[in-house]
């Protein structure tokens, strides 16, 4: 199915300066029992967000009304562990469109891109700058511009470039998905199969 198009986004951000956030935290295994993509956002960060009695934990950032926005700014090595795409679905359906970190786990990065969720990898220094800016002023606006591959702190113009594979960039900007592309290669694939041992 076509993914949502993404060109540029200006938004406030939610800071989560925790490192090695694994996909078991993003969505614990016991909430993976559905057979369709529905309601995973409700269990996003379930065990950090809610206590044993399903009451919101006030000290967790998603329960803190000070912070909101479509950008999640997270500590190094975000999305490690399980390959569950449910993690990307949960983040996307919750309303995030961009995840910023100084480092992403490989499978998570692919899963995010395949769902129109943009992983923006920046330097540890710029990440630190973002954390400080957001914590000082939760209304801080950040622009993520996919076309120019730049992330900008709008208040002072501080910015950094990020990299994205040109093919994936085009998919996101145009809203294409990989299956359409693979199906268009049918003849090539068949030819390849004929030469298999």
């Amino acid at each position: 199915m076509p993914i949502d198009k993404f060109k540029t986004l200006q938004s406030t951000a939610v800071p989560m300066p925790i490192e090695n956030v694994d996909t078991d935290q993003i969505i614990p295994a016991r909430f993976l029992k559905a057979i369709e993509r529905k309601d995973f956002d409700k269990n996003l960060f379930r065990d950090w967000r809610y206590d044993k009695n399903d009451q919101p934990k006030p000290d967790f950032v998603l329960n803190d009304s000070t912070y909101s926005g479509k950008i999640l700014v997270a500590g190094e090595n975000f999305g490690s562990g399980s390959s569950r795409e449910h993690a990307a679905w949960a983040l996307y359906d919750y309303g995030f469109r961009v995840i910023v970190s100084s480092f992403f786990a490989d499978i998570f990065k692919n899963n995010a891109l395949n769902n129109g969720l943009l992983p923006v990898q920046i330097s540890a220094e710029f990440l630190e700058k973002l954390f400080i800016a957001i914590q000082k002023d939760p209304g801080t606006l950040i622009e993520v511009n996919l076309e120019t591959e730049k992330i900008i702190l709008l208040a002072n113009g501080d910015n950094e470039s990020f990299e994205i594979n040109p093919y994936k960039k085009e998919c996101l900007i145009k809203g294409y998905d990989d299956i359409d592309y693979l199906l268009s290669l049918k003849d090539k694939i068949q030819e390849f199969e004929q030469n298999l041992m």
Partner: protein
Amino acid sequence: MTPTTLFDKIWDAHVVHQVERGPNVLYIDKHFIHEVTSPVAFLGLDKRNLKVSRPEKTIATPDHNVPTIDQHLPIKDQLSRNQVDQLTKNCEKHNIQLCGLNHPWHGIVHVIGPELGITQPGMTIVCGDSHTSTHGAFGAVAFGIGTSEVEMVLASQCILQPKPKKMRITVDGKLKKGVASKDIILYIISKIGTAGGTGHFIEYAGSAIRELSMEGRMTICNMSIESGARGGLIAPDETTFTYIEGREMAPKGEMWDKKLAYWKTLKSDEGAVFDKEYTFDASDIEPMITFGTNPGMGLKISQPIPDPQNLPPNSRQTFEKSLNYMGFKPGDKMIGKEVDYVFVGSCTNGRIEDLREVANFVKGKKKADNITAWIVPGSRQVEEQARKEGITNILEGAGFQLRQPGCSACLAMNDDKIPAGKYAVSTSNRNFEGRQGPGARTLLASPLVAAAVAIKGKIVDPRENF
């Protein structure tokens, strides 16, 4: 010809097309599916009105979300039953071979692939599960994928994938007594960190790796993902060929000879260049255990928990959060800490060799009173073999509970959960917060350490006199 790595040889032979300034279109030889990460992919196919392109190249088994008791009865948990039923329906509709719950080949996907001879050298193998890296032990390029990619493989037998970089990890020398392959990989991850392998495919080499059995090699490749790597592989050799020969789905007769000749060419050429190389000395490795909430937080069992004072602020905060969750303090000794549960199982250490190791150790002994010990075989075949060898009797005699095959407490999707706050020494691969149940505290270790802990009731060096 320029010397080439094993990884390049296999990968390049499967590139159907190179997208300009983009990923490779990679042909997939074998695709495993399970009940949790496949249903949305099949829904996607339905929405586009597509059939599975090569159903004979996909094989299915329900493992993540199945009960491990009374598997002959209908599954009680309705959501789990739904998922398993959906897998059955999808397989029927698309003509995919299914090793269902009561099938003699049922088991954890990464245990049954090798044991049935499906996993073979030189193949590209994927599954919607990060521990697909296990199959790399046979000299295959095997890695985990997401559900969108599962849909790609079902639809076209290909995926779009950027080519990873290459890393070689060489472990030379002799392992000390009581040190197992699980200790090697926990040691490696404690050295290179949980992101040390990110963006790379690892080749494991060196005399200590060569000497491992196939089971031992699988344990190592299995946990490649815990270093962030896309996967890990080991060049096939006589150990590999002997393991495969004669298995149900292994090539036979003339085909075997032809394949074998090809498999023998599968190794990195002398002088092949890797993007990154590490070398470790096998004799430096001791029995390992983890103390934190990621697999990189491991140490030699005799060492104290390190002090995070010198870490940068965010890392220190993460480290402290982790210790806080575990109920430990910097400087704490691991030896002597009380444990509540022992879990032997999973695609890391739920094979027959692992059960033998545990049985060998606990024979004639009794588990400590404070310990609940679960043994969950990785497959039906492992379960059967254990029964035949008398392992089942030994384990039950020592007070272990034997369950039926499945992922079980490795990810605690079913009822096999470690209660909040309790400590579990586990032979699985992840000690993330809540991985084995909300609030559960996991300590990763080898089957031998797990066996020793079960007997003593607390953390103990298995090389001590018992």
